[in-house]
């Protein structure tokens, strides 16, 4: 069916046009209607409104509908509610979700997990809803903003009589004198009120703050930037949220980055009894007041991905990391999360003692990891044959290590030198005094060849023992998408301000045979517009009460 969309003024309008694009005459309505005009998008057709929509047009129309957009938003909000019932998988450092929900919440928890609601915000349907909202934002905006822009940038000054009388703010009354002169006189007071005034004979159009009409579309652009930023946050390298241990005094590689972090010094201070309230003292809890990691961040400059070479590091930043005061290097952040004050042996520096003469030979450094393996001490040579970090004997009576942590380190040496057998003599050494007694170092050495009566390894003072005193647990975060998220939100804010604090006001007037007709339209604040029109008419010596201008109706 082909509809006749030609207006009586001769303008050919598009399908779906409500008000003639040229003269503003309402189309497809009864001529005698007194109802207020539908002024949305200035009565122009949305782009998607077509006479014979095909498949693509139908998809386009679906997303261009505000109704659909509202439903999408409602569904998304309802979906988001489900994600707040129980804690989400992504919020926790480590637990097994397949059992966690059942153990904690019973059957409901299990159902919750099985429905996939334990990761609501990463589920396909939630992401699909977000994508559809994004599509709706783009298409809705494009469908409306372009025709509106066109309509507002080529407005006809002389509008159809019905267009004026069916506005929400209307005045009609006689004026004295020549129509064209009256209109010329009206320009000045309107300009004073900040309007841009255009005249066409005995017709006039005054307009101000048109830019506020773009507010909603600016908001949409902001939201699209925001959605895209959130979407691309998942790209590798843009987002990282992990927790790692950093032993004091060690340079630790941060996986998936080219950064290394040294925990230079970790300190923890507790609240003293005096600082606590009486009630709290009763609970017997010890609460840390401060925990701080003095961290040095290094960037790898060469030989980074090659495990056969030592990476070349360059210091890039130093920071004392405290709770809520992370280290921040170009979007890489390290937050204080936890700590462990269990000391770990790093190295000892024993001397070799001749038991009979009391003579001491050298002092050598014995690292717990990657120790040097050959030592020359006076006339003796020591060859490190084996080491056990957590010494124990297995069922067959063989020495083993129970873990890789130096809880009970033991070192097996082959000692050669004067008065010793040609092929050397074996000697086991426990750096910790407690282990020496517990595992009976002397008894073992007796079995190994009795070297303990001639030679002993001994640590002279505590200064020869090096501990990793504590470890700091840091939360490593990278969120490179955040600046884009903030940019998006900033654009949204700009759009909101544009649309909220300014209004697009227009006043049309025409004089026909000594009768003045005024129509006024604003995007909001009708009260303000009525007052402005009344004050303008007063300046033109037309007395009218503000309230009389109201043409009734609720259409905006």
């Amino acid at each position: 069916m082909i509809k006749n969309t030609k207006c009586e003024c001769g303008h050919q309008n598009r399908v779906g046009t409500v008000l003639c694009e040229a003269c503003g005459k309402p189309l497809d309505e009864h001529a005698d209607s007194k109802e207020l005009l539908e002024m949305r998008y200035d009565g122009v057709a949305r782009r998607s409104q077509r006479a014979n929509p095909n498949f693509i047009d139908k998809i386009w129309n679906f997303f261009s509908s505000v109704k659909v957009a509202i439903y999408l938003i409602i569904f998304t909000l309802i979906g988001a509610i489900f994600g707040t019932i129980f804690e989400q998988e992504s919020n926790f450092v480590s637990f097994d979700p397949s059992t966690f929900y059942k153990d904690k919440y019973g059957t409901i928890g299990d159902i919750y997990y099985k429905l996939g609601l334990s990761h609501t915000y990463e589920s396909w349907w939630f992401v699909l809803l977000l994508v559809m909202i994004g599509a709706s934002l783009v298409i809705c905006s494009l469908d409306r903003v372009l025709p509106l822009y066109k309509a507002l940038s080529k407005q006809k000054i002389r509008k159809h009589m019905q267009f004026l009388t069916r506005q929400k703010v209307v005045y009609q009354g006689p004026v004295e004198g020549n129509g064209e002169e009256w209109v010329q006189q009206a320009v000045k007071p309107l300009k004073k009120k900040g309007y841009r005034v255009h005249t066409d004979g005995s017709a006039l159009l005054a307009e101000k703050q048109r830019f506020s009409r773009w507010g909603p579309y600016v908001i949409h652009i902001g939201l699209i930037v925001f959605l895209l930023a959130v979407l691309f946050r998942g790209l590798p390298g843009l987002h990282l949220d992990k927790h790692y241990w950093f032993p004091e005094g060690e340079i630790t590689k941060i996986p998936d980055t080219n950064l290394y972090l040294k925990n230079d010094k970790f300190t923890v201070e507790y609240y003293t009894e005096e600082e606590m309230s009486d009630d709290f003292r009763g609970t017997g809890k010890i609460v840390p007041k401060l925990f701080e990691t003095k961290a040095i961040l290094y960037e790898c400059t060469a030989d980074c991905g090659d495990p056969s070479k030592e990476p070349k590091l360059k210091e890039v930043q130093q920071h004392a990391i405290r709770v809520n005061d992370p280290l921040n290097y170009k979007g890489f952040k390290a937050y204080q999360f936890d700590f462990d004050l269990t000391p770990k042996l790093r190295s000892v520096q024993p001397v070799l003692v001749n038991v009979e003469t009391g003579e001491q030979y050298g002092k050598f450094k014995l690292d717990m990891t990657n120790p040097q393996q050959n030592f020359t001490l006076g006339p003796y040579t020591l060859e490190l044959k084996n080491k056990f970090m957590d010494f124990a004997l297995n069922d067959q009576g063989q020495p083993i290590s129970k873990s890789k942590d130096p809880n009970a380190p033991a070192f097996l040496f082959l000692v050669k030198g004067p008065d010793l057998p040609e092929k050397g003599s074996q000697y086991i050494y426990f750096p910790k005094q407690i282990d020496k007694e517990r595992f009976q170092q002397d008894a073992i050495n007796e079995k190994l060849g009795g070297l303990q009566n001639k030679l002993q390894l001994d640590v002279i003072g505590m200064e020869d023992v090096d501990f990793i005193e504590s470890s700091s647990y840091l939360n490593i975060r990278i969120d490179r998408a955040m600046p884009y998220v903030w940019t998006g939100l900033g654009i949204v804010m700009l759009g909101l301000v544009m649309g909220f604090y300014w209004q697009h006001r227009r006043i049309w007037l025409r004089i026909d045979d000594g009768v003045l007709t005024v129509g006024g339209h604003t995007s909001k604040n009708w009260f303000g517009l009525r007052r402005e029109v009344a004050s303008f008419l007063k300046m033109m010596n037309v007395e009218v009460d503000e309230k009389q201008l109201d043409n009734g109706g609720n259409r905006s």
Partner: protein
Amino acid sequence: MGKARRPVQIVILIFIVILGVYAIGSAVSGGGSGKPKMGDKPPAIKLLGMDGKVHTLEEYKGKAVVVNFWATWCTYCVNEMPALQAQWKKWSDQGVVVLGINTGEDEMTVRNFTQQLGIDFPVLYDTNNEAVQDYGVVPMPTTFFVDKKGKIASIHEGELNLATLDDQIKRLVNP
């Protein structure tokens, strides 16, 4: 009506579809803990081997790889070592590689241990526990069986004995 509109419409719709597929795809695949599962490609590794050279999984392309995470302090790992060594001897000429990844111990410990047990399959040092994290290894030992197409055929947590190991490798060679 504007002639340029139809292509613009189509371009925008295609753009939205691509973004949507990408977003949903990454949400579904990346939604898990990132632990490799059966049928996945094993995470890439780049580790120093006992031979002093850097090794990656790429080297074993086209071969079936048995990736075993172990440590000298883990009793079950120690127990299954002879079985791994025996199967390495048996299957190595049929395109099967046994790859032992030591988790965070130093060179001396590993070398002493392998010499003592007479192990000669390739052993790599995972000094910083990077592979352990990428593979999501929790209990030790954990063994990943990677087929010749480069996909994880099965994952075994805990000790393997000679028979089950033989059975698993057979399935890798003749799927």
